[in-house]
């Protein structure tokens, strides 16, 4: 078994590394890059806690080999905040709308919602619920997660948002 050389851009920084081909992207990020924001929930592709953004796709990093990310550009939760360190619209939305309790699903939810809003800047509640159908939350019941995403969409679009968190 030969190690593979990979070059990936993670949160804007280019990284080169030698990886065993069997190394999963989630393990590469967490253990080799010390980016522990993306979580391992189910390890079977169901829960979405490991979701990262890769070349403009939301990807479950527990179902992807690091070698498959060669040449790709990846964003993790560590790269989501604004350049000046303030919270992004989505992060602020999750905070203001109480879109998290234990927080385990949150990095995956935010990265998935990020891509959803890039593709559909003004989603309906139904489109949000379908858009995050691959992300499970054991705590919130989703209502406030949906509101958090609506809050972020309104903030990005510069439209008013009055809904209170439940």
């Amino acid at each position, binding site marked *: 078994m030969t190690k593979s050389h990979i070059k990936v851009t993670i949160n804007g920084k280019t990284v080169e590394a030698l990886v065993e081909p069997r190394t999963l992207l989630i393990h590469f990020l967490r253990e080799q890059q010390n980016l522990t924001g993306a979580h391992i929930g189910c390890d079977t592709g169901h829960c979405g806690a490991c979701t990262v953004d890769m070349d403009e796709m939301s990807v479950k990093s527990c179902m992807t080999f690091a070698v*498959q990310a060669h040449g790709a550009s990846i964003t993790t939760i560590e790269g989501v905040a604004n350049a000046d360190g303030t919270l992004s619209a989505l992060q602020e939305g999750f905070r203001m709308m109480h879109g998290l309790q234990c927080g385990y699903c949150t990095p995956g939810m935010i990265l998935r919602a990020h891509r959803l809003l890039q593709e559909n800047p003004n989603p309906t509640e139904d489109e949000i619920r379908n858009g995050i159908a691959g992300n499970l939350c054991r705590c919130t019941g989703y209502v406030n997660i949906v509101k958090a995403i609506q809050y972020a969409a309104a903030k990005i679009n510069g439209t008013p948002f009055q809904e209170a968190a439940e």
Partner: protein
Amino acid sequence: MIPGTFDYHRPTTVESAVALLLQLGEDARPLAGGHSLIPLMKTRLAAPEHLVDLGAIEGLHRVERIGDDVVIGAMTTQHSVINSSLLADLVPILRETALVIADPQIRYKGTIGGNCANGDPGNDMPALMQCLGASYTLTGTGGNRQVSARDFYLGAYETALAPGEILTEIRIPIPPTGHGYGYEKLKRKVGDYATAAAAVVITMAAGTCTSASIGLTNVSETPLWAAEAARILVGSTLDVATVDAAVAAAEAITTPASDMRGPAEYRTKMAGVMLRRALGRARVRATV
């Protein structure tokens, strides 16, 4: 869960991919989106010694119309299928089916070629391909051959692919303008394989069904093309007695396993219910 060790290859042409697969022999497998293969490798149900990643081969990501067919490159993702306006116009049942496969993340990576080549009876695309009369282009070191989706599936995880061959494209004859269609899938939750599912394409003229094709998902070791059920529909007005007879004919060819999705008898009945619903939707959509 960590897969066994393997060597990774990333060819950039179909020729080099098939040459590699032939040379490496049985211990090598193509890797497409990885969303069926990687779960098997993580549980060590599969332990290939070599993976030949098809992801860097350029010509395999494409959707185009060629004459009366649409041709879809094997590495086209479900996400691209859903967002293709060409496919939405010409073969809209592809989008309807892709939308009930897994979840958004898996659809960004999972490919139509991987879904069709995998041979898992739970995959949704194979029965649809049988319904549409699609054919697969299989490429080996000796060149291409065409195999109909209706002849491709031999058993669970057993297909007509010869050692060293890859599926490079899917050719779908464009259904007539005004055709009706429906893909109905019963699943327990998002990201679940079908308890049973049915794909239907029909044409109608002056209130009479002039052609019909039906595929069934996950109610046998292979996808099923329900030719007899479709034959019963043709020439009728899709009246209750005829639909009942077609549903009975479709149920009769199912041989589902009893599993956590339900006992075999239930899954057979659900195949009938899915067919009835898909047919109802197809009829409403068909231009009469």
